[in-house]
């Protein structure tokens, strides 16, 4: 499991270099060939036998983060890249740029807040990143306009099989795909590590166009809201209950037959599985589904509490469930290729 290594790398959308370099080095051990496209997607090819089918697996390398937008004396003004809950930002640690210059997200301390300010959330425009620079010129030199900024958070194991890290969404998917890449099947396998998911699923569509797959499975870290304040029917997923299958979300509608097949496979093999109960969120499956003349897609995810924060949390058992389910499904395809065709056909009993 490479989650520690993968989550401690920085790869904010648009600057996935560190992550790509690491994954490429790992993937080279197992892939027959690797293509790096103009956007930075990595497409790792594993040749099959005589089969005519192409199966695509996809996980995104990028993570939410920030970008330098300006200065207030030596302090850095910034914008979010991807969906970040502003409420969590005051008091967090960040690393600026490739040199990983440490900084903190500052705002007005409680003693100096007016009464109205105390009761309301601090707005992003009233926050700044403090790297200790005294003057604008110094800050500008160390953190030029447009520089990428990532959360700073160390991988930590805790509780009953839990892991806390930043960027579990979607380094957990990257870790699973690097495991799958060790396998070889009768069909051609394209394991894709995509860019820019967090700012609008930009990389995956391009990768899918190149691969032109018969079927695609997206492996993700997804929301998990099984916490106080949420009612049970609002739980998107439950941590520890296994691999989460998406039926529908804001961007995609998984192939019903494929999802049913994956659910049944999990049950047959005693792999813990659950449906994602809410239709919120969205991932690369949305873009892949609409590529060329359309692609059969499904998403399987590891539930992540406090997603898009520096302290996202997953359970190791859910990682295992997800990995085992993807493996089991690919083995079924390998044993019976006509399955792949069957998902594409409508009105066939």
């Amino acid at each position, binding site marked *: 499991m490479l989650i520690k290594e993968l989550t401690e790398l920085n790869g904010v959308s648009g600057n996935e270099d560190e992550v790509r370099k690491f994954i490429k080095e790992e993937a080279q051990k197992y892939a027959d060939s690797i293509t790096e496209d103009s956007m930075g997607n990595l497409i790792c090819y594993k040749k099959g036998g005589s089969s005519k089918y192409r199966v695509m697996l996809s996980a995104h390398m990028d993570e939410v983060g920030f970008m330098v937008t300006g200065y*207030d*004396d030596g*302090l850095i003004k910034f914008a979010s890249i991807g969906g970040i*809950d502003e*409420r*969590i930002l*005051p*008091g*967090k*640690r960040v690393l600026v740029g490739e040199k990983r*210059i*440490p*900084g*903190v*997200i*500052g*705002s*007005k*301390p*409680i*003693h*100096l*807040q007016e009464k109205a300010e*105390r*009761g*309301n*959330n601090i707005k992003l425009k*009233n926050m*700044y990143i*403090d*790297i*200790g*620079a*005294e003057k604008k010129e*110094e800050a500008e030199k*160390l953190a030029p306009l447009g520089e990428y900024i990532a959360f700073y958070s*160390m991988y*930590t194991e*805790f*509780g*009953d*099989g*839990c892991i*806390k890290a930043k960027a579990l969404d979607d380094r957990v998917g990257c870790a699973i795909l690097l495991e799958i890449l060790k396998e070889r099947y009768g069909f051609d396998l394209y394991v894709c590590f995509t860019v820019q998911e967090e700012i609008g699923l930009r990389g995956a569509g391009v990768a899918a166009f190149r691969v032109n797959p018969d079927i695609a499975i997206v492996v993700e870290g997804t*929301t998990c*809201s099984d*916490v*106080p*304040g*949420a009612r049970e029917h*609002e739980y998107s997923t439950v941590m520890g209950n296994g691999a989460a299958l998406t039926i529908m979300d804001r961007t995609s509608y998984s192939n019903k037959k494929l999802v049913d097949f994956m659910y049944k496979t999990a049950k047959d093999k005693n792999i813990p599985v659950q449906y994602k109960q809410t239709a*919120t*969120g969205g991932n690369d499956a949305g873009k892949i589904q609409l590529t060329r003349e359309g692609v059969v897609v499904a998403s399987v995810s590891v539930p992540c*509490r*406090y997603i898009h*924060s*520096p*302290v996202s*949390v997953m*359970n190791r058992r859910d990682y295992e469930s997800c990995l085992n389910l993807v493996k089991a499904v690919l083995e079924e395809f390998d044993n019976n290729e006509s399955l792949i065709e069957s998902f594409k056909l409508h009105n066939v009993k």
Partner: protein
Amino acid sequence: MDYINILKDLSTYPGVSGQEDKLSGYIAKLFEKYCDSVEIDEFYNVIGIKKGIGGSGGRRIMVTAHLDEIGLMVKSIDEKGFITVSNIGGVDSKVLLAQEVVIHGKKEIYGIIGAKPPHLLTPEEIKKAVKMEDLVIDTGLSAEEVRKYVSVGDIVTFKVEPLVLQNNRFSSKSLDNRAGVVALLDIMENLTLLNHKDDVWFVATVQEEVGLRGANIAAYNINPDLAIVIDVCHGQIPGTPKESVFPVGKGPAVAVGPNLHRKYTKKMIELAKEENIPYQIDVEPGDTGTEAWAVQVSREGIPTLLVSIPLKYMHTVIETLSIDDIKNTGRLIARFISMTGNEMEEGLC
């Protein structure tokens, strides 16, 4: 003095108001290196005495810095093992989301502070600051496991990794007022090279954050002829009134106002000028909100001075200061102590 490592050790050592015993033991060890005698009183104030060369009639100068920190206390454990908390001291609930903590139960338990996820909040809720009672600690353990180790009333501290920033800036939790404790050590070290007639009583005090309690007790028991209180003041940040904040890195702030002894304060400012020690003036028209307020009116009254180290983002986990300001605080107060032996009587008039 290895400021960075001492600051790292002291700022991350747990010592929430009312439960400072272990920290007091740790600080007593640090005091022993420089003091003639060190004792811990019944309330866990740490008192280190450094004898003078005599000739001042056994006069005592007391120098205090509080050692306690703000924190949280376990209030309840729910049926799923989530823990709710109360605050000890002035904690801003807005900076607690996605924060890492340690619960000091039967053993130390790691946890993360969560709340209702953002996508489930109503538009009204999104604007409002999260309330302390809506925050929960997630330990990744079952309720049964949590109850084995955690009890209502257990102390919770923030878990952070200190950062060294540009320009000798340092960021961590609890620099309010461990920075002051480091300044005490710095004065001691300076005094090993300077003659001083008076006996100096260094006190790292308890329970400042919950009402200046430790200093009250220490002032009564020691009954000094002069007291110097070291604390932190607000570092200058955007959007705050310039007259009540102090730029970090521009020297300690010497307070003036009715809480402080006028002649001694004047002498200290003159000394700073003579010795070219950078300083700022902290105008305090009334309650300084520090131990000086309690000490001044102990017994028949004690001439009191207040020197503050500018600190940004007070009462957050990213409190940020300049190490130079600590050094200059140490230098200024040590020089002042070595000077006052001769001029004490004059000052007292």
